[in-house]
């Protein structure tokens, strides 16, 4: 028989004024297994705790029930208290007789009855408690940041500055991400490259940061504190160990293909740096277009290179690295508007460009050296139409969400056009104008004063006429049809998660929301964590946001990682699922239910009579399991059970209530 002690807290008068301890305590004494029951004014106080500790040794108590405030309040307190006694900290149950009894009921008699019921439930449950022991898992003091945009750069720098090793992984040949492509940033209009490239350089030079560009994650295993990540280094065909980045090779390459960085507005060679300020500032060969790699004919770059860096036989390599924490900073991409909006020509009209293409156009280092020119004929546009919410807030065609940054960069684009092309006209078609940010509303006002014309309504159709683009839509404020003949149209398109997010998140076991953004652990209180322990979020991979928000989230994620890496080991909650292998038939019903991919089927050796067999059973990874217990309800045989909330314990509670 268990020897249960029950301790009833008055909580001053908070409990005692409604629930009668003089009835409750004697009633507890009568419950099966209870060998001692007492009450006190404040159980959580020093003398209260001392009294519990004394009673434990005096009465040979092996488990306790504390009838007090919510377990969410003091469960940890009392567990800590038990650490100094003969009892395991998990041999404790709390009957919530304050928040869920004395504070919500007025009738003293009935409230006391209910409190007796709650204590009886706790007594019954605790009779089935078993000692649990927290496991401690060692922390590998290294972080992996996936994605080398501004979010990843910021997070990597913060972690590295705190003294921890970081691997910054980028799948493109250079870090920099979308911010490197921008011209100016709102609302201050400072040059994007001027503020981001120094950070890129810092990353490249930081002793604690190892840059792994042109790399992709192949697989992830393990859990918080010890992830094993297989990273695939794509073949670069250029030996970066000796390459100085002189750039000679690029000059004579006979191949010209669309530049990714300039979004097709210019060409690049097959051996190339992503952009002039690329970090690392060394080229790679694009195997898809290189003549030597495709046909074995060319080899000019190899001949040119003074250091012999070119290696056409280079192959992709996979390395496996260990990390204690992972930050996801995989960013966004713009939706493929052409595929969604046939009524805008579906990509047939060259003078309809995306906002990001405009950024490249207006950038001094861009294909037009900063001159705003129409792609079709290189003429300066006189009338420009900017269409917002292309793909955003459009559940029928695109995304139902707001992409958050477009209102501001639409205003910025308008401002830049009006400034660079005096006398030009800019029409901005909008659904709403949203400017919640420091200096944002002022910037928007300024743009209107600059002469941008805001028209409320969606453009329903764009077609070509006489070398111009006719934009047709409704002015929903006036309730009339509008037609604007424009020389150029800029579509401020929606953000969507980067390509490949599905594979990466499923490798990690991280969830995605309805729109495929990575799901944060809690939308309010744990916005930079995922529900996978040790995996954090920075920037737009979690949802659309602008640069300031991205950078602050990156720093926040970095702070979480630093906090984690500062420990050499961490305790995991012992209240996790456990498998009784004898009972498990290996049906796998639990595997798909687990949100953390914590359960796998594992082959074990067993005997069947005299025969040796191998059979599969469920196996819970204690580093990944968070103790939700969803698997236990799916396990028909009850082979899986949740420690601390075992089936038997919950059934005891049910039975006890019904007495």
């Amino acid at each position: 028989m268990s020897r249960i002690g029950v301790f009833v807290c008055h909580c001053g008068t908070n409990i005692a004024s409604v629930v009668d301890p003089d009835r409750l305590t004697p009633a507890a004494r009568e419950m099966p297994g209870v060998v001692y029951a007492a009450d006190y004014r404040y159980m959580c106080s020093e003398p209260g705790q001392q009294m519990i500790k004394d009673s434990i040794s005096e009465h040979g108590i092996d488990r306790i029930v504390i009838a007090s405030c919510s377990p969410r309040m003091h469960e940890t307190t009392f567990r800590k208290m038990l650490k100094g006694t003969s009892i395991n900290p998990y041999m404790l149950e709390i009957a919530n007789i304050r928040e869920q009894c004395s504070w919500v009921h007025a009738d003293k008699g009935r409230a006391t009855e209910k409190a007796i019921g709650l204590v009886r439930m706790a007594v019954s449950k605790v009779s089935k408690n078993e000692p649990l022991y927290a496991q401690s898992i060692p922390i590998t003091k290294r972080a992996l940041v996936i994605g080398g945009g501004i979010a990843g750069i910021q997070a990597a720098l913060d972690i590295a500055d705190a003294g921890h090793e970081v691997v910054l992984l980028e799948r493109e040949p250079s870090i920099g991400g979308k911010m490197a492509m921008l011209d100016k940033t709102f609302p201050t209009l400072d040059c994007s490259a001027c503020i981001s490239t120094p950070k890129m350089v810092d990353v490249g030079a930081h002793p604690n940061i190892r840059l792994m560009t042109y790399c992709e994650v192949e697989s992830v295993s393990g859990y918080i504190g010890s992830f094993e990540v297989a990273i695939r280094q794509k073949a670069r065909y250029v030996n970066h160990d000796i390459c100085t980045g002189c750039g000679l090779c690029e000059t004579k390459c006979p191949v010209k293909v669309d530049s990714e960085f300039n979004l097709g507005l210019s060409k690049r060679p097959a051996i190339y740096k992503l952009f002039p300020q690329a970090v690392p500032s060394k080229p790679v060969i694009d195997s898809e277009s290189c003549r030597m790699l495709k046909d074995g004919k060319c080899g000019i770059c190899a001949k040119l290179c003074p250091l012999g860096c070119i290696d056409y036989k280079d192959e992709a390599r996979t390395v496996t690295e260990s990390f204690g924490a992972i930050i996801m900073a995989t960013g966004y991409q713009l939706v493929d508007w052409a595929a969604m909006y046939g009524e805008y020509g579906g990509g047939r009209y060259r003078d309809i460009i995306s906002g990001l293409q405009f950024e490249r156009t207006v950038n001094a280092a861009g294909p037009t050296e900063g001159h705003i020119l129409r792609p079709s004929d290189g003429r300066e546009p006189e009338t420009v139409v900017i269409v917002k919410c292309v793909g955003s807030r459009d559940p029928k065609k695109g995304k139902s969400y707001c992409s958050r940054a477009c209102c501001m960069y639409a205003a910025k684009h308008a401002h830049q056009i009006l400034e660079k092309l005096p006398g030009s006209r800019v029409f901005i078609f909008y659904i709403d104008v949203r400017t919640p940010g420091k200096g944002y509303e002022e910037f928007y006002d300024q743009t209107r004063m600059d002469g941008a014309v805001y028209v409320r309504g969606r453009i329903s159709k764009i077609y070509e006429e006489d070398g111009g683009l006719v934009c047709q839509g409704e002015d929903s404020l006036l309730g009339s049809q509008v037609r604007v003949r424009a020389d150029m149209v800029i579509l401020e398109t929606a953000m969507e998660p980067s390509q490949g997010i599905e594979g990466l998140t499923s490798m990690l076991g991280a969830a995605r929301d309805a729109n495929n953004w990575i799901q944060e652990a809690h939308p309010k209180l744990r916005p930079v964590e995922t529900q996978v322990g040790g995996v954090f979020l920075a920037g737009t991979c979690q949802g659309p946001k602008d640069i300031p928000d991205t950078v602050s989230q990156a720093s926040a994620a970095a702070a979480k990682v630093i906090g984690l890496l500062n420990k050499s080991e961490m305790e995991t909650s012992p209240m996790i699922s456990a498998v009784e292998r004898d009972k498990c038939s290996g049906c796998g019903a639990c595997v798909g239910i687990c949100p953390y991919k914590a359960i796998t089927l594992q082959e074990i050796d067993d005997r069947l009579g005299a025969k040796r067999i191998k059979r599969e059973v469920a196996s819970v990874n204690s580093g990944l399991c968070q103790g939700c217990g969803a698997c236990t309800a799916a396990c028909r045989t009850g082979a899986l059970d949740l420690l601390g909330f075992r089936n038997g314990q919950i059934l005891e509670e049910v039975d006890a209530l019904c007495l």
Partner: protein
Amino acid sequence: MARPGGAAAAAKRPVAEAGPGAAREGNPLLPAMCRVIKITDETPDVKTFRIQTADGAKPFDPMPGQLAMLSAMGVGEAMFSVTAKGEDWIESSIKRVGLLTEALHGLSEGDMIGVRGPYGNHFPVDAIKGRDLLFVGGGIGLAPVRSLIRYALERREDYGSLDVLYGSRSYDDLVFKSDIFENWPAVCNTHITIDNAEERWDGHVGFVPSYLEEKAFSPENRVVVLCGPPIMIKFCLESLMRMGFSKENVITTLEMRMKCGVGKCGRCNIGSKYVCLDGPVFTMSELDGLPDEK
């Protein structure tokens, strides 16, 4: 509708006439509430419980080898051999293996425990009078044998030489340490062994069957009482056969799942025998006549 056959059969073996089951309005399935008056930790998973009736008497007077049905109230009942008895108590040593034994291990001194019995036959104490006795035990298997050792020691003059050969996996797993190291060596020959060498152990190391052969006990006028895990029994029996013992002179006790203890519920049969009534004590030659379902 009394049947004459029943009474005749009952006369043949010790029946719980004095037990609480029989005393309480004849319902043999009704336990008596007794008290645990002393608990001894034998090994990490074996405890010995000393049990007494509520008014301080012996629950019943078992013969060596007989069984008691013990219950943790509200959890369940199971059959255990009575390992010792005193003036006003009986003792059972219980290994923790399942739900019920776990509950019993949770008992404290002074707690209540349900008792009924004694059940089953007993070691043939009269038939082996005058013989040399060799007790061979392994692990918790010493428990049922202990009752007979104590019986023989109390009637030392009735029996010839007494040898106890006992082994366990490790020093920690040896049960009844005060008996095997202090009480018994003074009055009989003890031979203790453990499976693997340990630092604090300077006694014999090795398995029971080989130790048995090593000791080369003569089969002459000797009866062996053998109890332990099935695999040990098997090898010991082989050793004993090699040493020239006959199966008639090797006695063991059996364990089976039992619910009623009185030959009704059907569980513990081996062929037409019920372990709870016809056993648990059998000679090896008797077992040879039973189906191999143990």
